[in-house]
């Protein structure tokens, strides 16, 4: 059973809030799913290898070439309030 404190901690790292009125239901739902996922604890490892990627791709590097990029004003189109080619955010450091 996941605890209220654990849910609050997880929500903090996941950058979400959990409303008080939704807490009990969420604890119940998450506990049920985690209990279900716990089934894998009972399955013993029969190999030391962990999955890495499907087609055994070692590296995927592109050629070192300069290619055309997107226009600044295009990129800023999806956010109102951008200024001088920059995204606008609230000051996050206290000075």
């Amino acid at each position, binding site marked *: 059973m*996941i605890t209220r404190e*654990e*849910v609050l*901690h*997880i*929500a903090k*790292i*996941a*950058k*979400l*809030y959990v409303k008080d009125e939704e807490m009990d239901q*969420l604890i119940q*739902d*998450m506990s*049920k*799913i*985690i209990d*279900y*996922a*716990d*089934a*894998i*604890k009972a*399955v013993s*490892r*029969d*190999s030391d*290898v*962990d*999955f890495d*990627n*499907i*087609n055994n*791709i070692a590296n*995927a590097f*592109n050629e070192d070439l300069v290619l055309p990029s*997107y226009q600044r004003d*295009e*990129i800023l*189109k*999806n*956010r109102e309030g951008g200024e001088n080619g920059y*995204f606008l*955010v*609230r000051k*996050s450091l206290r000075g």
Partner: protein
Amino acid sequence: MSKLRDLQRLLETKEISCVELTEKYLDNIERQNKTINAYVRVTAEEALETAKKVDERIAAGEKLMPLEGIPMSLKDNISTKGIETTCCSKMLQGYYPIYDATVWQTLKKQNAVLLGKTNMDEFAMGSSCETSIYGVTLNPNNTDHVAGGSSGGAAASVAGNMAVFGIGSDTGGSIRQPASFCGLVGLKPTYGTVSRYGLIAYASSLDQIGPITGSVEDAAIIYDCLSAYDPKDSTSVGSKTTTHDKLKDSIKGMKIGIIDEFFDGINKDVKTSLEEAIRVYEDAGVQMVHLKMPGLNAVLPVYFIIACAEASSNLGRYDGIRYGHKTDTYKDIDEMIRKTRNEGFGKEVQRRILLGTYALSSGQYDAYYKKAQNLRYSIIRDFKKIFESCDIILTPSVPVTAYKKGEALIDPIEIYMMDICTIPANIAGLPAVSVPCGFDKNKLPVGMQLIGNNFEDYKVLNAAYQFEKLTKGSYLSPEVEI
């Protein structure tokens, strides 16, 4: 049996113009979409513009490209430059991509006619389109039932004659399950064959784009057009062989694996239809090989841990700063991001982000994520072994037929378990197709799934094609009158 080819023949012989054909489909959408809710956005202007271009090319005596002039739909998680793309989430309402997904670029180059963007569960998390902000998509076969999900809109657009084919995405069955519910063919190609560039990510190691069509031949034609190496997708490898030219290969002597665990607890009517399908294959000289896969019961929890973990990481990008929803009032940057995410994401998406974050958090990482990755390797190894004794595997696509409206929202675990037949192919990156193979007592379609070894998409498609031919296409959706 290719609707695609039939329509192109009508276009080339000028029995119908591409504009007329497009208008017929737009009319169908106008009439039916209010009830079915397959489309969340109709792109009539763009569609007619492309259709005009196609007509001009036909008039100039040009030869049509394989998908040219065909009215089709795209799932709303496939980026379309200048056309709103929302993943059916409040988080992305008003988001206009500044680039095209590679699949859409390919389709556009071929002058495929985009009719619109189709409904889906929010960020592809669900199996009935009921987590979409635009509401449920109904099943054109019976509107008391859902079309399935998460590519429910794509399937309903085809089943309701509102598109010739739909492009969807499949993370745990999201192409095959709605195809099965709607009586259509749905292909999840081998992981890495179709580019994921521009597909808005849910779980990157499982996601794959593929077609939903009215016939196997159409699925093969589309697969051949879309499968190609793409340097913009770091997991792309492209296809090793084409499929359409291999649909005529004989299946006599082919070995089909039957894994008993896939048939445990399936609905009676589904079972009867599959037994009948197995008989059809046996009569055609196919050998059935009975196999065991005891590791199968770990597949669901492994999938759920990996999918949620990847989702929690992928969806970390929605912070309200560069695009998407942004909250109105906040006192600092942390509150801005958290409020934005709370307001933008629906309940199911938030639940999966929290579960994924839990599985990746310090103290839990080894027990859940790392263990799941270890078991994933074992599952892949088990499949490799299975393919030493058979060519393809036959299973139900879904243990049941289409859910009734609202049914999928009652118990999340019970609904997650319904993906048991489709998930293994995503875990192991295998190609898998769902083909209609019967009806239940309420006349709802039943789907059969054929799973192949990596890069053997041509084998599953050929086996599916032969089945369609042997049964004279009697389980396919009725042809549209044009």
